[in-house]
């Protein structure tokens, strides 16, 4: 039984100075968790994410982070992450250390961490400027005389946070739609917080075990937080709030306006439940998808 509130989970597992990986590729971005980290005033975090997205723009604007490990810095489908750009280009509100890879490289760092390997090989980076700016990108000759590959070292975050459709109270987690690197981050991290739209009975999980991506034994906290990924989306539960992604382009261009937004929507609400209420039912109605059932398969009963 690992069920706890977001406040409890963040208080227990995210500490100043920690390396925190928050994953979900476009889908299932754990905004509720990030906002709680902001509210609890965490500082000097090393934030890790393939695609920092709006969430890290907000967390960095709020002053949570010292360093960013990433591979794509953009507001997907819209434009820039202006708070992060201000930190990098002008040191506002304070400088931000960057450690960057291509996506394959960041993924490889998680894999080395999850697989407990001293390095993970990939073919990228030859002929690029990455090795000059990132000493974690090195090269190894194959002992079989069949080539040379880039390698990156393991990344084992202090805590990994992911959002999914559903889990049981022990953290056995099922997700569908884009699955990103959620599984790898969960296995690589020293502690794992899983945030879900629904807590389901263990029998629901057991009915379709191939759908379970994260086994409970790697999970420390299960947080039940409906709409916890807004303004990103959860496949089958709600749509991406593209309107907000467009608005963020304007909000984040202006440091004062961004801080006012944080005051209203992060510091100004107690928790995600209050955020959901404040957004109002018309938001959730607007983002509600139609239905597209998966169909069933039969595992067979063997007695």
């Amino acid at each position, binding site marked *: 039984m690992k069920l706890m509130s977001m406040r409890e989970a963040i208080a227990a597992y995210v500490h100043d100075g920690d390396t925190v990986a928050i994953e979900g*590729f*476009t*889908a299932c971005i754990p905004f509720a968790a990030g906002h709680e980290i902001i509210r609890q005033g965490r500082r000097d975090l090393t934030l890790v994410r*393939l*695609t920092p997205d709006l969430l890290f723009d907000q967390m960095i604007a709020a002053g949570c982070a010292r360093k960013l490990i*990433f*591979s*794509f*810095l*953009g507001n*997907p*489908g819209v434009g*820039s992450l202006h708070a*992060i*750009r201000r930190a*990098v*280009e002008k040191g506002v509100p304070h400088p931000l250390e960057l450690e*960057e*890879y*291509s*996506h*394959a*490289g960041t*993924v490889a760092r998680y*894999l080395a961490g999850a697989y407990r390997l001293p390095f993970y090989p*990939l*073919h*990228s*980076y*030859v*002929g*690029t*400027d*990455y090795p000059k*700016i990132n000493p974690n990108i090195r090269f190894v000759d194959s002992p079989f005389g069949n*080539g*040379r590959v880039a390698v990156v070292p393991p990344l084992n975050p202090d805590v990994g946070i992911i959002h999914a459709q559903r889990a049981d109270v022990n953290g056995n987690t099922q997700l*569908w*739609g*884009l*699955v*990103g*690197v959620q*599984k*790898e981050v969960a296995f690589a991290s020293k502690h794992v917080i899983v945030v879900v739209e629904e807590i389901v009975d263990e029998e629901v999980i057991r009915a379709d075990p191939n759908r379970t991506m994260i086994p409970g034994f790697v999970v420390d906290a299960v947080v039940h937080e409906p709409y916890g990924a807004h303004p990103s*989306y959860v*496949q089958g539960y709600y*749509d*991406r709030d*593209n309107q907000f*992604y467009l608005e963020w382009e304007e909000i984040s261009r202006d440091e004062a306006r961004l801080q006012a937004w944080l005051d209203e929507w992060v510091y100004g609400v107690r928790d995600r439940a209050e955020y959901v209420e404040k957004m109002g039912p018309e938001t959730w109605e607007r983002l509600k*998808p139609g239905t*597209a059932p998966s169909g069933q398969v039969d595992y067979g009963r063997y007695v």
Partner: protein
Amino acid sequence: MEKYTPSEMMIIAAARALAGVKTVFVGIGLPNAACNLARRTVAPDLALIYESGVYGARPERLPFSIGDPALVTGALSIFPMPDVFALYLQGGWVEVAFLGAAQIDRFGNLNTTVIGDYHHPKVRLPGSGGACDIATHARRVFIVTRLQRRRFVERLDFVTSPGHLDGGNRRQELGIPGGGPALVVTDRAIFTFDDETREMTLSSLHPGVTLEEVRAEIGWEIKVASDLEVTEPPTEEELRILREELDPQGIYR
């Protein structure tokens, strides 16, 4: 039918280049439109692969990003990120990939990382995402971008994605698996890469565009193919499919 725009010409030229191709790695925007046009014309078996982990998408709306949920519902397969890069891309299954860039040089090397010094950038750009990996592995890379002098530069501020490096067989010598850039499609002209030197070569001017206009937008002395052509203008059918089926809202006009 109304006269076509430079963007439409760019999409249509890119679509034609996909003739017979079966797997293409693509983002949202113009290249996506080009792929969907190709499926309806020159490449009926073309399967689209998105970096987000989607193969065989069948979206019911125009996707907003490569992670749009409409790309997931009804797709043929969804796969995790490690598979996108190690299995699909590094595994060598992608025939053609589309890339754009803030800066491109004469050998098709691309910069999407910074303008200015890396450590003190004038403009911090998004970085690689999957671009470096795509440029490394796709059998052929098609670059789609507007022809602008600030993009077509003598020297990149940062090499994010490898093209033909400093030309010749250097790319192959260093063991980079994919074939590298094969085509640059812009709003004014089409470029290929010389078989030996691997230098970008102007191969076709879009109708009405002059050589001088093209030269003015390129930061080095561009090589010109001896058989420089004029791009075949869009057919009625190409324009009809693009406007009526793929872009009814006119986003890509």
